[in-house]
């Protein structure tokens, strides 16, 4: 699942998003591309709602 998160600007942001999303059940890998401002989540039975909520928890809007 690929989500666009325009607010991410630096390694700190990347780490925050990765940490929050990784805690979710079923998530096996989180890949952040700072240049493209995207977050790629891989895993089983992924729930978009919960991932968006986790990214929000990290302080970012999914755009």
């Amino acid at each position, binding site marked *: 699942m690929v989500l666009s998160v325009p*607010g*991410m*600007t*630096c*390694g*700190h*942001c990347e*780490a*925050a998003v990765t940490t929050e999303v990784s805690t979710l059940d079923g998530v096996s890998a989180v890949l952040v591309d700072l240049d493209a401002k995207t977050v790629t989540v891989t895993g089983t039975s992924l729930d978009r709602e919960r991932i968006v909520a986790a990214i*929000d928890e*990290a*302080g*970012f809007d999914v755009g």
Partner: protein
Amino acid sequence: MSAEPATLDGAAVDLSVTGMTCAACATRIERHLNRSEGITASVNYATERARITIDPTLLREHGLDSVIDDCVATVIGVGYGASRSDHDDTTHSDRRLTDLRGRLVVAAVLGTPVLALSMISPLQFDGWQWVTLALALPVSTWSAWPFHNAMWRNLRHGQATMDTLVSVGVSAATLWSLWALLATDAGDIGMTMSMSLDGGDGTPHIYLEVASTVVAFILGGRYFEARAKRRAGEALRALLDLGVDQVTRREADGRLVEVDIADLGVGDEFLVRPGDRVATDGEVVEGTSEIDMSLLTGESLPVPVTVSDRVMGAAVNTTGLLVVRATAVGAATQLAQMARMVNEAQSGKAPVQRLADRVSAVFVPIVIALASVTIIAWMLIDGSVEKSFSAGVAVLIIACPCALGLATPTALLVGTGRGARLGILIRGPEVLEATRRVDTLVLDKTGTVTTGMMAVVEVRVSPGGDRDRLLSVAASVESGSTHPIARAITAATPEPIAGATEVIEHPGVGVEGTVDGRRILVGRARDTGVSPSWGRADVTVVEVSADGVVLGWIALADELKDSSLSAVTAARAAGLEPVLASGDRAEVVDEVADRLGIERRLAGVMPADKLTLVRDLSAEGRVVAMVGDGVNDAAALAAADLGLAMGSGTDVAIAAADITLVRDDLGAVVDAIRLSRRTLRTIRVNLFWAFGYNVAAIPLAMTGQLSPLVAGAAMGLSSVFVVSNSLRLRRFR
């Protein structure tokens, strides 16, 4: 910034936040904080502050401290650092100071009897050595803890500093003595320590007094240095204090509302009354006035502004009422950018490795190698394990000089004290050590090489007129104004000055009033072709007319200080190349530079340009001292290798600089630089002697000839030498 009193209306508190790397971090923290009920937070990335507004209900229920603690915990939970910003810096350095003092007191109180018992044989009662052990152990463990701790930290990075040397020396002395007392006859009741040079009675020496004394001396040096250290962040605080908290906003329907500055948005229109600071950057939409832009340009002469002119937040409005439309707020304003610049310049200054540490980095490995060689050599030649280690340990012990702890602090203390007597206040004594040989001197113009005040330099009257009469009528009209030009004219006019009636100020144009029935206008000289040429570019000319007839002209200028020319000459003689930089017009800067004979000059510079100038000069390989007095000089002062603020300057400049000059003449600048050079040279000589005496004793230690007497003498002599060498700085002139 402190917490506002917790009233029923709630409270606002500032937290300082560390670890933010971008604007998104600030947003993130803000979101997390705002999630708590009753908390409204705004986080500023540039100033690294979070302003927390607490709802009155929450405040009543939980109390201020607990709410703040929760907020701090939230920020930390998100992965950043936070603390109450009102005493953040202070508590940190205070705690360090208290800690050092505790360790120093213990080392001094316990170390003194250890030294006395060890050095003075008649005092050595039965079992004395066990008493010294009991006294010395807390010193070499607890008091010396900062050294041991630093040693381990450095070891992990494969580095050796002065701390390593101290830690190794103290540990070697203590462990050796402990072993000697426990395992050999040194521990026998009734043993006395021979102070003879041969030390050949077969009893291993104990070196507890060496360990205690070294710890006490070096802690003492550290303590005095820490006490003199400057507190970071003062410049920033002074700068932020220039900001405005409340602003009168004009709503679309014309109503005027008092709002918090945080509630002002881009595009909003707000009022700036005479005497007020402009709330934020904007464009004038109504009114005419003169604005004191000294913040940005360093020039104290107000600039006329009218509709569509840009004004900067924190500039002071002088005479007229203005309505301004905000073009930037918060972190985007020029003031916030300046704060960021000062902050970056201050934190960007890489800490220079201390001289003592630089020497230690080379010295420590050599000493350890020598100690190993000593042990191996003794093993091969003599075969006695005890003798081998005795000699090896002695090398480690003697290599750690007491005077090392005194070399830098005593020179800095004496240098700082001597400076104070000469009107040179050194805020961060460590800069004296860190600054390499300064070769370039950047001078701000206004207030630094000039007086910073307008003064009447020449008066020309129309044919048939009278000079005194002209000044007198002009002064009558101007006497009620605080404008720098008005003050200069009033000051140049002999008393008494008759008051004018019906005085009207025309912002940006001049002042009008009735004197003896005639309507007098004192205003900026219009270019009518009749105004005379003055032969110099740095004058401001006002024209005085009565009922429309020109009476004459008064020329005013910000004159050079008497001391400036001789100081620039002295700077050259001391090998410094002067550079003049100013926010003023090119003609004015050229005039001043020519008169001082300064080749390199820069006019019309904004604060960022001054910073760039300093950085460029540094990039050329120069070591730059910067002298300034204005808010606009702050970032450059902080970035320079040595920042010097004139004592008459703004708080921001003084807080950003390393040295403040009480005397208002430029001669003090050259004295300050010479003093810093002398202090640095003193530190170098001190270090040489601190190591010198002990290095001389290393061969003795290696050959097994070292006795506590020699160790004590080496340390005592080098300490005495170092202290008296530092004291020579008192005669600096």
